């Protein structure tokens, strides 16, 4: 099953410990397992552009689509056997500790 993994900053998370940031190891393991299909860090939220067209007028704002303290910092596309595997994969990502992770299933066309 395919899942979209949102890697998210979370001000209420554990304080960042650089020595325990194992992102390289995570990418290596998950790629070797065939779980991690594609993913990247994203530019900071301040560099996001949100586009809305209202009454024919194009409005482009700086920043993400919603104001929240939790902000998307990266993404990964996972291929997992089931949700438990996706949870396991997410829990090993350093940002599960220093941020939070959302797992969303792809919408399989019917």
């Amino acid at each position: 099953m395919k899942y979209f993994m949102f890697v998210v900053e979370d001000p209420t998370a554990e304080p960042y410990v650089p020595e325990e940031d194992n992102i390289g190891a995570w990418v290596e393991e998950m790629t070797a397992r065939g779980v991690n299909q594609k993913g990247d860090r994203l530019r900071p939220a301040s560099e996001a552009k949100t586009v809305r067209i209202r009454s024919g007028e194009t409005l482009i704002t700086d920043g993400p689509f919603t104001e929240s303290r939790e902000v998307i910092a990266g993404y990964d596309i996972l291929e997992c056997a089931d949700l438990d595997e996706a949870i396991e994969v997410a829990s090993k990502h350093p940002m599960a500790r220093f941020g939070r992770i959302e797992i969303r299933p792809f919408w399989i066309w019917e």
Partner: protein
Amino acid sequence: MVSTLIRITGDWSLAEDCTAEAFETALEKWERDGVPRNPGAWLTTVAKNRALDRLRRATNEARKLKEVAIMNELEEPADAEDVTDDRLRLIFTCCHPALPLEARVALTLRTVAGLTTPEIASAFLVPEATMAQRIVRAKRKITNAGIPYRVPPVHLLPERLGGVLSVLYLLFNEGYSASSGTQLVRTDLAGEAIRLTRAVVGLMPDEPEATGLLALMLLQHSRRDARLDPTGELVTLDEQDRSLWDHAAIAEGLSLVTERGGGYQLQAAIAAVHARAMQPESTAWHEVVALYDRLAALSPTPVVALNRAIAIGMAHGFETGLAEIDRVAASGGLGGYYLVAAARADFLRRLGRHDEAAAEYRRALETAPTEPEQRFLVRRLEQVEAG
């Protein structure tokens, strides 16, 4: 182009079919709309999308078969007497942490305990349509999110067990508390919770928290015939007719309490101290205090702190108890919780300080959540006002 598709889809005949389809579509469309600027890219895109669609549909077929199998399990409520692996698979699936807590409870009752949706709705004082939707959404999420239908593997059992136990304890409390709703459903809920907890203990007989929860339930349930007087009014622990306690349940509960303290084990040990006392005066309150000390270290919530304060009052004197209650109330987190005022009122009453007791009973009445509790507080208020 076919080779591109083969690379993407890994399926030779599919690739060939879709290329052919793409050409057919191209001919139709280009006759109508004219040839696009980059016909090669257009063809590849269309063929690729077709192939991917077909692949998805094929994957869906396999998934759908699996889904139907799971849905069948979830649709047919299990036989109440049938304690099998299937039932445990169901319990763990229904209690998966990715489901919202309310949904876990509802789904467990519906599919594992076999209650009807109207019964569950009335047990939780929620409109039937709301409850039905809650259950449907939960089943959908199990399918859509890929929640596996199984007992979790050994390495996940400890963390998943906590979720199952809290759902079962929630069920038990719904049946155990005297909140409004038909008495019959209430008792069945508690009994059902006990049956399900037994099944889990059967799976994990060495897991102290599972046996601890069963012990706690049995010990609390043992008092069910003494908790209400003949007119249906609440009777407190110290005023209950202990001959009405279910001593077989007590014996079994006591046998399950161990020294290995987790949250449920400690709560069961506290209930055990009360169960062993032939009359309220022989309650080993110092033991209760010691157990609350351990429980507070494990689970430092304001409610545990309040219960500990009450135990301290019973063990060391009501003045000491009052001081401890005040200390806990001051540290925050209990704002407006009626049991704080009720506890104060009780100690003041026992000290003969009736005017102060009356004031506290009135404060407790402002926030008492259920009618039986309100009526109880009113009776106490009348007692102290009578002097």
